[in-house]
């Protein structure tokens, strides 16, 4: 490293990015994971992942076993969904989605028979000797998606890692969101499974080493993981400072490897792949036990709850059932959030199912969601300091408010990771990240319309060409027929003439 490089690095350091919100992780993080009993009804959406929705292969009235495939992946970026318990399918249709819009989503309604009988499971014997493709196939068939919340199909990511020749596999155990502690509990209680998953993923991706990043506010998890990783070659536990959003893949990559993923590039492009620790555990279960992803560990937290804690929940369980099992509400929550308080989605009602990417359900009391009235921007620059990717949130917001979305894009709107640090630190309570989410959606909508216009133009062109061709063919056919008729007439005339000459006076 040259001297100038050093100087610039020193100059550029300044205040660290990110924020330190109140953690609120205790007491939920101190109670062991409890398993939720099988609920009577489960609602399993087809689309619980990024990409195309899965296609159902079952019919109403069909009896299914736990782990049976209900819908198969459709297209390259997709994932199947499985029955979370044994029972009967009583409906396939729209239900309210676990999404702030409150729109509908297609889902399978499963009535549990309370027996919870597994399908005969097929594990891979000696997976480390098997081809990486076999492991990836098994992961794909198990319907595993990124359990940190991004819900990107895990097998696609494994294949991507293999193709682009990654060197480092990073397991994300930072869990930087306040309130959540499911990854913490998972690492404390099932450290062996996580490490086993990491080894399997290393084999599937061909990575050389595995680094597991854990924030320094989880000392018990660090101890447990270190113990489990002892003696496993090339798997190291890296302690990272507790700071939000350390769990964002780009930030964790910088912290652990010093590499910054360029804008518009993926982590795999710089030889790194990031997976969540929960995903690693699920991959271990899929490969060593043959179990598809039918349940996950998640946090139930918030001041409105009687008994916060971590639960192993079947996918498709209604949030209301989960809360009732945990001991119910202390008082009506001001807001129900799926995920963490910083990036989570507000739920329209408690009558929505838990999906694969749901890391927690927060029932926040009025004091916890207290929100100031937005005031004018005082240009203090707090948001600029907090932004982990070095954007200018106040400038982007000014442009979005003035309707100049292109101006915001020029300032790097597409590099915004939507972490919400800017809105969190804003002393004027300006809803910055909300504005960016809106602008991103608006830009995506415009892109869709442009695409549609483009498609229409192609179709219109094809039609014009077809009409011209048809007209030409018609004209040609008409000309041909006319020529034939003419020739026929000429022939007739020619053959008629001698006849006429022979039999004169006979009617023609």
């Amino acid at each position: 490293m040259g001297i100038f490089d050093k100087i610039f690095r020193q100059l550029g350091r300044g205040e660290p990015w990110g924020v330190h919100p109140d953690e609120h992780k205790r007491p939920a993080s101190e109670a062991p994971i409890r398993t939720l009993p099988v609920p009577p009804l489960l609602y399993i959406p087809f689309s619980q992942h990024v990409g195309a929705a899965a296609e159902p292969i079952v019919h109403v009235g069909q009896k299914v076993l736990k782990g049976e495939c209900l819908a198969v992946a459709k297209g390259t970026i997709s994932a199947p969904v499985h029955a979370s318990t044994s029972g009967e399918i009583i409906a396939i249709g729209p239900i309210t989605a676990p999404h702030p819009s409150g729109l509908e989503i297609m889902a399978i309604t499963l009535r549990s028979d309370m027996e919870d009988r597994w399908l005969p499971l097929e594990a891979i014997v000696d997976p480390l000797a098997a081809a990486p493709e076999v492991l990836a196939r098994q992961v794909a068939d198990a319907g595993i998606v990124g359990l940190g919340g991004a819900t990107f199909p895990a097998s696609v990511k494994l294949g991507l890692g293999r193709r682009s020749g990654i060197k480092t596999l990073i397991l994300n155990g930072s869990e930087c969101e306040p309130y959540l502690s499911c990854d913490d509990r998972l690492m404390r209680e099932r450290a062996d499974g996580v490490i086993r998953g990491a080894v399997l993923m290393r084999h599937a991706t061909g990575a050389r080493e595995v680094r597991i990043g854990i924030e320094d506010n989880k000392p018990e998890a660090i101890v447990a993981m270190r113990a489990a990783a002892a003696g496993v070659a090339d798997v190291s536990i890296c302690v990272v400072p507790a700071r939000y959003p350390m769990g964002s893949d780009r930030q964790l990559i910088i912290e652990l490897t010093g590499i910054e993923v360029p804008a518009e590039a993926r982590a795999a492009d710089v030889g790194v792949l990031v997976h969540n620790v929960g995903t690693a555990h699920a991959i271990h279960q899929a490969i060593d036990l043959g179990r598809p992803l039918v349940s996950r560990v998640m946090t139930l937290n918030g001041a409105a709850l009687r008994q916060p804690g971590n639960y192993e929940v079947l996918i498709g369980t209604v949030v209301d059932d989960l809360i009732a099992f945990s001991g119910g509400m202390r008082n009506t929550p001001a807001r129900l959030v799926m995920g963490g308080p910083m990036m989570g989605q507000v739920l329209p009602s408690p009558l929505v199912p838990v999906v694969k990417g749901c890391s927690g359900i927060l029932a926040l009391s009025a004091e916890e969601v207290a929100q100031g009235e937005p005031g004018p921007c005082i240009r203090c620059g707090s948001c600029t300091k907090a932004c982990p990717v070095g954007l200018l949130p106040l400038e982007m917001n000014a442009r979005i408010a003035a309707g100049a979305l292109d101006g915001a894009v020029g300032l790097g709107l597409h590099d915004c990771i939507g972490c919400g640090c800017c809105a969190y630190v804003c002393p004027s309570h300006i809803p910055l990240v909300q504005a960016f989410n809106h602008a991103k959606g608006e830009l995506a909508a415009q892109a869709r319309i442009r695409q549609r216009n483009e498609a229409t133009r192609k179709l219109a062109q094809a039609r014009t060409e077809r009409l011209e061709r048809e007209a030409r063919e018609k004209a040609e056919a008409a000309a041909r027929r006319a020529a034939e008729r003419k020739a026929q007439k000429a022939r007739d005339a020619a053959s008629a003439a001698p006849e006429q000459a022979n039999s004169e006076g006979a009617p023609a």
Partner: protein
Amino acid sequence: MLIAVISLTTLGVVLGTLLGLASRHFRVEGNPVVAEVESLMPGSNCGQCGFPGCAGAAAAIVNGNAQPTCCPPGGKALAQAVAARLGLSLDLSTVADAGPQLAMVAEEICIGCCRCIKSCPSDAILGGAKQIHNVLREACNGCASCIERCPTGAIGLKPVPVTLQNWVWPNPTSA
């Protein structure tokens, strides 16, 4: 007096000749801007703007006889693209953009006359004689040219349904 008249006349003649030569030398064939704007338009020639086809609308927009917002199928996105290309400032809040629309066939009154099929500029309607027609969502751009052709009023425009895939966060009222 005479000198003044002569010198002014000479000046005028010389400058006029120069300009005449220049206009010949720098003549622009057609208007490249019109062609560029036309390439932005949907190209379905649906005629909702009131001009003969997309080429006509493009020329009218460039010449200032029409607003960039005159194309209903193109919507806000097109208006913005055109305005950006022409350097016009646009007040989008006044644009009555009902969002993307789709044609829908009311199956119970469709008589299968095939008239709409012939009028569709993007071949988005399927069906045969005496068969109920249907609209291909992916191909329809909501240009409405089929609507007046339908003898029974079975075709209508409906906004594209909002799904989780195309839902957009509402704008927080902020500044």
